[in-house]
């Protein structure tokens, strides 16, 4: 049941996803508390990324993907309602991808892209301020402040990923979805992103898909374990990693399968 509790940034229930005839998500219900980090973990192909992509309707672009279920933003907005424009939804629910995907534009243009499209800044000064602030919050400003007009693809992988985070937060979303944001990065860059996630949760609700269980335990307060399209277990991260209720979860986190 969808709870009308406004402490949740996003509530989902009875979620089914099919790719053609193949079932990818089978009756999942999950609520995401505001200003907290929720990890989605599970073996490859368990549906965690598919589920994440339902939350900002990124699956819309895949023709064969069929999403059913209830998704409520802030307790009252049905994000799959025909009245909702998908662009407006994505303004509120940002996303960071597995592989850093900066646009082949300057660093400045990358961050200014979203604010320009959504008309967030009323003047050039304000836009500059937003770009600066976003880069600052993504922990990248000091590294790039002297080369804002350089092409972003020249940055290192970790810098590119932080730029993508800056790009996502520049439009002031409420929720940030992260799809294995560190899987293409080295340990140092990963540590930086994890620190960043810890800072960002002050202002944003973060939902992160990760393959690294240590990462899930480091950054998140809630964890959901998926297996074969089913939500096996959901709870406090500490509990999931120490005393899981389900045998399957225990097997996965102790490395016995997956």
């Amino acid at each position, binding site marked *: 049941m969808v709870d009308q509790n406004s402490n949740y940034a996003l509530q989902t229930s009875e979620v089914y996803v099919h790719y053609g005839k193949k079932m990818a998500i089978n009756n999942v219900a999950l609520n995401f508390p505001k200003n907290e980090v929720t990890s989605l973990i599970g073996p490859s192909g368990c549906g965690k990324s598919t589920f994440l992509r339902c939350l*900002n309707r*990124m699956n819309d*672009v895949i023709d064969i993907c069929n999403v059913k279920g209830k998704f409520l933003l802030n307790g009252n907005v049905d994000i799959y309602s025909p009245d909702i424009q*998908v*662009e*407006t*939804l*994505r*303004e509120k629910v*940002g*996303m960071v*991808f597995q*592989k850093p*995907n*900066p*646009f*082949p*534009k300057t660093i400045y243009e990358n961050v200014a*892209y*979203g604010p320009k*499209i*959504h008309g967030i800044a009323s003047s050039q000064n304000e836009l500059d301020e937003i770009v600066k602030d976003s880069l600052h919050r993504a922990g990248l400003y000091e590294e790039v402040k002297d080369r804002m007009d350089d*092409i972003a*693809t020249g940055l290192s992988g970790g810098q590119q990923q932080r730029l*993508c985070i800056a*790009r*996502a937060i520049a*439009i002031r979303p409420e929720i940030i979805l992260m799809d294995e944001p560190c899987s293409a990065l080295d340990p140092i860059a990963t540590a930086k992103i994890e620190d960043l996630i810890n800072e960002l949760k002050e202002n944003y609700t973060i939902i992160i898909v990760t393959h690294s269980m240590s990462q899930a335990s480091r950054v998140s307060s809630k964890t959901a374990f998926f297996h074969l399209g089913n939500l096996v277990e959901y709870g406090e991260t500490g509990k999931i990693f120490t005393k899981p209720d389900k045998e399957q979860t225990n097997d996965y986190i102790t490395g016995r399968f997956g």
Partner: protein
Amino acid sequence: MLYLSLVFVFILSYSFYFYGKKRALSLKFKKNENLSSLPDYYGYYVVLLVFFPAIIIWFFLLIFKSNFQEMFVMSPVLFPDVATWSSGKFGLIMNKISNLSIIVNLSEIDLTVGDKSILKMASESEIIAAKNLANFDKIYGWSNLTLFIILPVLLGFMATKSISGKLNAQPIVEKIISYVIKGSSYIAIFITFGIFFSLVFEAINFFRYVNFMDFFFNTAWNPNRAFVINASEGFDQEALKEAFGFVPLLTGTLLIASVAMLVAVPLGLLTAIYLAEYASSKVRDIAKPIIEILAGIPTVVYGFFAALSLAPFIKDVGEGVGLPVSAESALAAGLAMGVMIIPFVSSLSDDVIKAVPQSLREGSYAIGATKSETIKKVILPAALAGIMGSFLLAISRAIGETMIVVMAASLRANLTFNPLEPATTITTQIVTSLIGDVEFDNPKTLVAFALGLTLFVMTLILNIAAITIVKKYREKYE
């Protein structure tokens, strides 16, 4: 016979692959030798050692066949004064003899008593020489065939015999193959230079008659004035000075190419965007090949289309709104050419747009950009290098196009930027200057090479520009 022996060279050398490989394998399994290379390489080793010597000798015998013929046929016994002949006379007689030899070869009749009407032009010794030549050809052919059966077999057995476990065939084979590969690429380069220099030498001949500056900066093109030859002084210098003004040809070419690009760029690019971003894969699979057919239509057909359908239509419309339109307008030729080069733009641009990583599209959608914003602000800029490349390729094609302009535009040079007037192009003038009955050393003919060289340099510059632009953007966007 010579070509039959080539077939033998191929078949025999190929069949030695199996023999060489078998030999290597028998060394390995029956004599327990360790092979230094993989068994296949011993097969290739034998093939190459048979094929290359044989093919080199074959080419040698083919190229020098005529020399052997001459040595055999033009003996001082038959033609006592042969040593004193000029090379022209020698060639003429040799040609006559080889023609006679075909008749001799075909008919079994005794030429000395039979129908002399065919042979009445030939002397006794020429007829004997023709018979000798026919015999020579027979012998040459048969011995050639025999040689190229024996030689490959001999080489093959020798090469196979030389196989031992210690022989490392792989580096040898790879070295030979690498020379072959290198050689192939040099051939293309040499041919390019060959084409260039053949143009340069004839163009130099042209500039002996016509001043360089007059050619490139005069504004009147009347090549027929170069006919005027003064009996005492040769070419009329005044007429030459004014006959070959390149400027109207350049403007005509640019005018028609611009019209073509005005058609092809928007239509092609929008088609590419539709195909790559909006069309379902079913539509794309059908539409793309159909559009590409446009590029495959013979240009002469576009010429018909331009001359018979487009030009009258444009004339009617123009006159309807009170504009004077020539029956052979640059506009008609340019429009037809534009349609022809649409696929160059659309197909290549479609490929580069498709090649933009999906992650960039998703990145843009995830920020809440619409599809059209994503295309305008992310995808097209990312694909810009390839798109520019496709434009430049299309321009090169438009500038080099001949047939459409020959049929639909005009032959009269006209210095104008008005597309409703007739105009002519460089390529058209190359054609008309070569199809006259003027002798080859006349500047009216030679100008074709000067024009060709100019065209060559123009397209070369365009290509260099294309490569530079593509490189510059690629550095930026990767």
